[in-house]
């Protein structure tokens, strides 16, 4: 909200400069976004907090200055615009012969109006036009400019109807009826719904209450008689209706944030004063003021002890009382505590803590000291699965994967996981209408953005799958792992087993021993014979050649997706210590030619079973095809390491090796 410096100084005298006023307001909660210089005058752009509608006027800002600045004093105008009735004619009845008001809906707390006759078309006074222009508003006409000006000055929205265009002429405040329509001032047509609060004449809606007037009853060059509305509507009702109708106005902004119901009549009077000054036209004597149930405010207790306990600093009792009084609260002392009735414009003051905040902000938050909390301090930081994911990430860096972090809201993608997607009902654009159900789309997009070659990425974070919101790990690896170095020979390119090794290393670092097996069901994202299921956790493998060519990725791109939501559940328990044998091991190497259809896991299993506890460890150190190995076969070179309590003789070692060989022969293998 913008205010000219002169509008503020009309209401309050102070030794402070515009900049100092700005700093004061910023530090009491009305942040000054900027101070503009317009045609030689300072204009303050004030940010109004959502609960401080009372600040959305020159009057509200003046109140804040008066509460905080000891050099400030109210002006005569301040006194005039804060008096309930500033013109002497309020008991006159003449106006009642010109119009009537009927409130039928409880959402209207108060409805008041004055009637003006003998108007001629004209412009508003130069100083009003000047100020409105500086605030960025376009002067329109005398009546319209004065309603706007009084609203900015007092915070009370006004609306001028052309009285001759009102049927009745009577005002009825009621809910819209089904089938009723209204064209508002901005030219838009609205189909109204029951529940939407309307200002009507005796026949039809003529304005959306608290939001915008209708085009039919607008004041214009031909207007000679005017009904000036000043009312108070329920803030939630105004907000609901204006959102339904897609409208937003300076008036609705103020009503939504709560306008002072006690300011209704004085805004009419201020308008009448300004009109009289400008044109000499006096209102028809009297005010129609329907105010069926003026809201009452209950006193709120505030204890100096609790104030100190919450603020963390002692505020002298007298100062608490003085601050609250300066803010317009009626304070009564009762023993050690105060009971304070908040002013009608401060709906945000409801309970003790609200008053403590008022005391704190006027007293000055800079006077609050700094302490660290004591008490029963727990051990902080991540626990359980969160801790395992942090550890897992460390290992993923160690195996050479770069972390990426990508968007959750995406379009459909060829690498989406199976199942239905979660759709956002009100997306910002169709390209971000879905919640990702896999990290693979993000990984692929990151790869493509960065040239698609020699990239090794992982991402952890939430995905939204058939199982709900899950923590997931995605990996993409493609091309050379190491940078080309001047001293190096041939570089190794990532393949299936690079990825498998990364996954094994990462999961083992958190105590999870992955089991790899064939896919349970075909996965269109993966190469059918170069892919694996990681039991209970996910899938991995080479990207399907169709997906690779569709996306423009290298065929040799390897991807994995692993559910890490509950690693705690699949983590193996801490192992027990194994005693270290003092005796040296015996090693025997064997090379066996075997059909390629026999998986290595079966070879391994057969050896382990055959050798029994003497086998300390075995490892595959070569896989050979070529000369000397028949078609469809390969030669596996396997090292066996035996150990026991005591020395292995050559003979004993050979015996255990022969058991292994026999077991491999049973699988169809032949010693090479």
């Amino acid at each position: 909200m913008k205010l000219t410096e002169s509008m503020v100084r009309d209401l309050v005298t102070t030794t402070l400069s515009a900049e100092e006023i700005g700093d004061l307001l910023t530090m009491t909660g009305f942040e000054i976004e900027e101070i503009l210089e317009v045609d030689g005058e300072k204009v303050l752009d004030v940010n109004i907090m959502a609960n401080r509608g009372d600040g959305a006027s020159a009057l509200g800002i003046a109140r804040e200055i008066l509460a905080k600045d000891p050099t400030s004093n109210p002006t005569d105008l301040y006194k005039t615009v804060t008096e309930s009735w500033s013109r002497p004619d309020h008991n006159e009845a003449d106006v009642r012969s010109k119009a009537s008001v009927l409130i039928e809906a409880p959402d209207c707390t108060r409805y008041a109006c004055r009637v003006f006759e003998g108007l001629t078309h004209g412009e508003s006074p130069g100083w009003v036009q000047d100020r409105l222009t500086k605030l960025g508003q376009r002067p329109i006409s005398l009546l319209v400019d004065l309603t706007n000006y009084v609203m900015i000055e007092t915070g009370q929205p006004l609306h001028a109807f052309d009285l001759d265009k009102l049927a009745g002429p009577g005002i009825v405040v009621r809910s819209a009826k089904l089938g009723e329509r209204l064209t508002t001032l901005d030219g838009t047509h609205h189909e109204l719904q029951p529940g939407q609060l309307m200002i009507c004449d005796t026949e039809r809606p003529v304005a959306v209450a608290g939001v915008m007037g209708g085009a039919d009853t607008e004041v214009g060059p031909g207007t000679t008689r005017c009904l000036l509305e000043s009312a108070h509507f329920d803030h939630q009702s105004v907000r609901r209706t204006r959102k339904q109708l897609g409208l937003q106005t300076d008036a609705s902004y103020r009503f939504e944030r709560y306008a002072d119901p006690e300011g209704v009549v004085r805004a009419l009077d201020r308008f009448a004063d300004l009109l009289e000054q400008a044109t000499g036209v006096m209102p028809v004597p009297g005010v129609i003021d329907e105010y069926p149930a003026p809201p009452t405010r209950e006193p709120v207790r505030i204890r100096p002890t609790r104030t100190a306990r919450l603020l963390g600093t002692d505020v002298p009792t007298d100062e608490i009382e003085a601050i609250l009084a300066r803010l317009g609260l009626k304070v009564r002392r009762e023993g050690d505590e105060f009971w304070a009735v908040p002013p009608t414009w401060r709906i945000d003051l409801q309970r003790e803590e609200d008053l403590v905040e008022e005391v704190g902000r006027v007293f000055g938050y800079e006077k609050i000291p700094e302490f660290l909390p004591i008490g029963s301090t727990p051990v902080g930081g991540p626990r359980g699965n969160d801790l395992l994911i942090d550890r897992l990430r460390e290992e993923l860096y160690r195996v050479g994967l770069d972390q990426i972090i990508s968007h959750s809201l995406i379009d459909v993608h060829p690498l989406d996981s199976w199942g239905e997607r979660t759709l956002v009902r009100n997306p910002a654009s169709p390209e971000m209408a879905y919640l990702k159900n896999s990290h693979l789309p993000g990984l692929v997009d990151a790869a493509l953005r960065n040239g698609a070659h020699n990239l090794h990425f992982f991402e952890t974070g939430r995905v939204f799958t058939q199982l709900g919101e899950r923590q997931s790990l995605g990996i993409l690896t493609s091309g050379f792992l190491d940078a080309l170095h001047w001293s190096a020979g041939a570089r190794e390119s990532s393949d299936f087993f690079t990825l498998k090794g990364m996954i094994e290393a990462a999961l083992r670092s958190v105590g999870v021993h992955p089991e790899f097996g064939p896919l349970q069901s075909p996965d269109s994202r993966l190469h059918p014979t170069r892919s694996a299921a990681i039991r209970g956790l996910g899938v991995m493998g080479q990207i399907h050649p169709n997906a690779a060519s569709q996306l423009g990725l290298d065929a040799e791109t390897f991807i994995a997706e692993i559910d890490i939501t509950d690693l705690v559940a699949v983590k193996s328990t801490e192992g027990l210590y194994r005693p270290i044998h003092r005796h040296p091991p015996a090693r025997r190497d064997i090379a066996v030619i075997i059909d390629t259809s026999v998986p290595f896991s079966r070879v391994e299993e057969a050896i382990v079973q055959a050798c029994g506890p003497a086998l300390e460890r075995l490892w595959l150190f070569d896989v050979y095809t070529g000369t000397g190995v028949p078609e469809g076969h390969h030669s596996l070179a396997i090292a066996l390491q035996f150990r026991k309590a005591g020395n292995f003789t050559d003979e004993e070692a050979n015996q255990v090796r022969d058991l292994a060989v026999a077991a491999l022969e049973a699988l169809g293998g032949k010693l090479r």
Partner: protein
Amino acid sequence: MDEIAELEEQAAKAFRGATTTAELRELEIRFLGKSGLVTGLMRGIGKLSADERPAFGAAVNEAKGRLQSLLDQLTSALRGAELAVQFENEKIDLTLPGRRPRAGRTHVLQQTIDKIKRVIGSMGFVYYESPELELFKYNFDALNYPPDHPAMDAQDTFYVSDDLVLRTQCTALQGRVFETVAPPFRAFTVGRTFRNEAVDRTHSHTFHQIDVFMVDEGISMAHLKGTLRVFAREMFGGDAKVRFRPDFFPFVEPGVDYAISTPKLFGGRWVELGGAGLIHPNILERYGIDTERYSGFAFGLGVERIPMMAHGIDDLRHFLENDVRFLEQFR
């Protein structure tokens, strides 16, 4: 005895004539080794009378000692010269690039998040995760948002259904913790939040927040300020100071905006980081907490703000676009 002197002279002459340490090593074996010539003299000792033997033996040993020390001296001189040649031959260009083992890179946001987790965790706050796809009631109702309130204007929300939203603030964790944990407690989270905002250099529909809160007896604004001071010092270094300014958030009362200033980073300027305050008593009461006994504070801030300020990053969009040229600048 003459033969000792003769042999000593002969050996010394040979030693002095050597030009390499390898030669010296050979000469050492020839003269001083187990079956060397000098040692061989001892074999003649048998021909001597018992009286002569001790003197002869001593003379041989003395000669041997002298030769050994001469040899050591010559070896050390030659070794020095030889090493000088070797070093010259083995010279490398130390400016050639080093061989760096590949290690993955931590995303700059993760670096910030890790640091936040260390700092806040070390102050006794327990880390929680909570859903990104959140129930409306945790995102708003539980946080004391009145229905149809303008405070929601700042929280343009993505809806998945009437009840399910993409959380607009990590504060949504609070109700979940209040439901399951009794005070006193300290809790925090770091996570992703969403708001239906147009994307530009300083706005995104997807960003990250931290939310920190605690409830205990006698918690005041002073504890909030002290905690923020430590947090700011650890995150930004130097003597970061904290300033409160009144602000409104439905879930705190009093509510403030907090700004920090460090001479090092911002040249004494106040930089607003986020919202904070004492947890609203309506919330504590909603979860059956006695507000006369307990109070609590809460603060939050945007994660992206931190690296943006620390590194002068001027475009929020970089963070989730994964351009390696951006990411590789932050190791």
